[in-house]
């Protein structure tokens, strides 16, 4: 009896000890690598679109699991992670900080990955690649694009007997008078260089030259545009969101506190969810032309950190998300428009896509220290317009010279 028990015990121990060495008759679960993806907080529509895109990625690459992290203050949280040498595997990079992060040496050069996997950059709009390029290397790929377009509220326009959105600056001026006569604020736009700069372009000036090496804030055309903008703030044709008791221009537009605003594709899902009546009454057009058309476009990219743990899987993810298939899913719900020419424009975003392709739609200069220029411009602009009886020419000059003084090359 004792011998039987001993034999059984020995056999059991042998099975347990040798089991890992034996070739498995049963197929083992595939090894699943988890990569972390850090993004910033967004609207429910954006989150849903991203979740869908991630789900399709995971279905296609079942051995890679994506762990989504939504940062509340992405830039600050990423800075802390970079400093600790523990960045996520993949993360969003906003155009405005891309060159700062490249300059800090925290981003991984994707050139070798792009070359080894024959990933073509040809379908990408070059201006959306530019914020992520430096010294012949590329540190991120644009996940989408978002140009500023003019949005109008048909209901409010009808009250002033306006049938169509203004095509030119002159038409805008005429319509503004009609709306003001009906005590309707024509345009809600923040005193922000990332909005008003669009008019600098359409007036024939701009924020910077195409290589971002030189400021255009001192040109006569930019000064003329700034005078027109500040004149509108003085006449009441432009009001800031805070003047209309709103947190941002989209909220003021949604609350029907203004007839027009100028935002990107992010406005549509916001209105759809929060102000459905205004969403139904919304019409879109390119911004009114001055000397020619003009708008500003923004982008954000996917990057890998220099210290990211799983660069290979991270690159697989970026390839998919910035490839035609992933970008189609991501942009299909219309939170942004594609940064690739081979991805179809989502339904309802033809105007945004048209503006994105326009040759006078430019990206603001994503130069190192850009935040200082923005801060200088915005602070001075808000200071000037807080006085009811400001001198337009003087105020314009003060704002532009403040921004010029903060330009990094100075």
């Amino acid at each position, binding site marked *: 009896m004792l011998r039987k028990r001993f034999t059984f015990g020995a056999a059991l121990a042998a099975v347990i000890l040798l089991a890992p060495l034996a070739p498995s008759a049963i197929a083992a679960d595939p090894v699943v690598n988890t990569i972390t993806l850090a993004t910033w907080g967004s609207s429910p529509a954006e989150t849903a679109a991203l979740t869908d895109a991630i789900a399709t990625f995971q279905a296609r690459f079942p051995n890679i699991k994506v762990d989504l992290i939504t940062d509340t203050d992405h830039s600050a949280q990423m800075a802390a992670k970079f400093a600790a040498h523990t960045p996520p595997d993949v993360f969003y990079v906003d155009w405005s900080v891309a060159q700062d992060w490249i300059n800090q040496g925290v981003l991984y050069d994707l050139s070798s990955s792009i070359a080894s996997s024959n990933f073509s950059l040809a379908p990408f709009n070059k201006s959306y690649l530019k914020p992520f390029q430096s010294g012949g290397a590329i540190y991120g790929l644009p996940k989408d694009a978002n140009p500023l377009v003019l949005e109008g509220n048909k209901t409010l326009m009808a009250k002033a007997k306006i049938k169509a959105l203004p095509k030119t600056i002159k038409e805008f001026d005429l319509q503004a008078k009609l709306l003001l006569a009906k005590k309707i604020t024509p345009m809600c736009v923040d005193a922000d260089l990332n909005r008003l700069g669009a008019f600098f372009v359409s007036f024939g000036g701009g924020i910077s030259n195409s290589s971002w090496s030189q400021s255009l804030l001192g040109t006569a055309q930019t000064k003329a545009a700034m005078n027109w903008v500040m004149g509108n703030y003085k006449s009441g044709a432009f009001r800031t969101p*805070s003047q209309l008791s709103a947190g941002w221009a989209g909220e003021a537009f949604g609350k029907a506190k203004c007839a027009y605003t100028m935002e990107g594709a992010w406005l549509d899902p916001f209105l759809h969810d929060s102000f459905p009546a205004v969403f139904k009454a919304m019409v879109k057009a390119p911004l009114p032309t001055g000397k020619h058309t003009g708008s500003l476009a923004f982008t954000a990219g996917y990057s890998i950190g220099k210290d990211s743990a799983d660069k290979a899987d991270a690159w697989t993810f970026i390839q998919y998300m910035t490839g035609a298939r992933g970008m189609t899913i991501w942009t299909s719900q219309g939170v942004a428009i594609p940064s690739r020419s081979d991805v179809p424009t989502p339904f309802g975003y033809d105007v945004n896509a048209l503006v994105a392709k326009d040759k006078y739609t430019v990206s603001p200069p994503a130069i190192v220290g850009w935040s*200082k220029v923005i801060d200088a411009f915005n602070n001075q602009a*808000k*200071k000037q317009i807080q006085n009811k009886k400001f001198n337009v020419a003087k105020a314009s000059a003060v704002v532009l010279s403040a921004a010029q003084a903060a330009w990094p090359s100075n």
Partner: protein
Amino acid sequence: MLAVATRPPNSVAARQKRRRMWNEAFVGWGFISVPMALFLVLSVGIFFYAIYISTYKWGMLGPRGFVGLKNYKQAFHDPIFLKSIRNSVLYAVLVVPLQTALGLLLALLVNSKIKGAKFFRAAFYFPSIASSAAITTLFIFLLAPAGLFNQVLSFFGVNVPNLFNQGAWLSDSRTALLSIVGLNMWTTSGTMMLFYLANLQSIDGSLMEAGVMDGATRRQVFWYITMPLLKPAHFFVVTSGMIGALQLYDQAILAGGADGSPDYSLMTMVLYIYNACFRQFEFGLASAIGIILFVIIFSLTLLQRFAFGSSAWRGE
């Protein structure tokens, strides 16, 4: 045996007493060693590390070259930083006396024998425990051009659109900081009330009774008996209030954004540190500002300690 016999009889007791004292000291030091080590590493150590960082051009991945005092020079040559000092000091100068006076007033109120004193005590303290972000957001709504505050003004006949700031209290550089003073005076007064209340309840009532029997009026009792006896609370409230005020950050960034707009009227020293660190990624500069802020706070605290006299901070 002989040695023991020749020793004085109390030497054994003395030795045992010494041993007991050593044991107690050992246990005592053992208990505080962990928090003390954490304090030394995370507070004192970090302070010296910040001094070290401030002498370097320091990016997100670490040092990028020794620069000596250049970060300090850069800070003092930046008009926005100088404005942030001015804003922080102005804010502290305004908010500390106001929150102190309001806290004292509330403490006297809830310390008196009024009906519902416990309810009022809780009600006055509530803003102090509420989330700063939530309270500030609420305040942004209240002070918006179409907000409740302007509606009340309109009710009393004020033509709000014709006001110098057109009713935009938080987005006008002339009223933004003052609005934050009003907000924080309200939110912090509850905490100040508690400090005063604790001190008020520790005052021997017989002193006041003696004053009254000697013919002192209620006002005289308050000014000549109560107020001097509240000196430790005054010192604590003013010092802690000033330290907190000079570190204003959350209300400033929520109301004015990271750029402290308009006209940098809400740019405080701590917000400037945030910008240097997380928007410009100049950790060396941010550390230098942190050290400058420490020097300002430390100097003002010493000044207050001197002004209040040693009896205040000793709690006598």
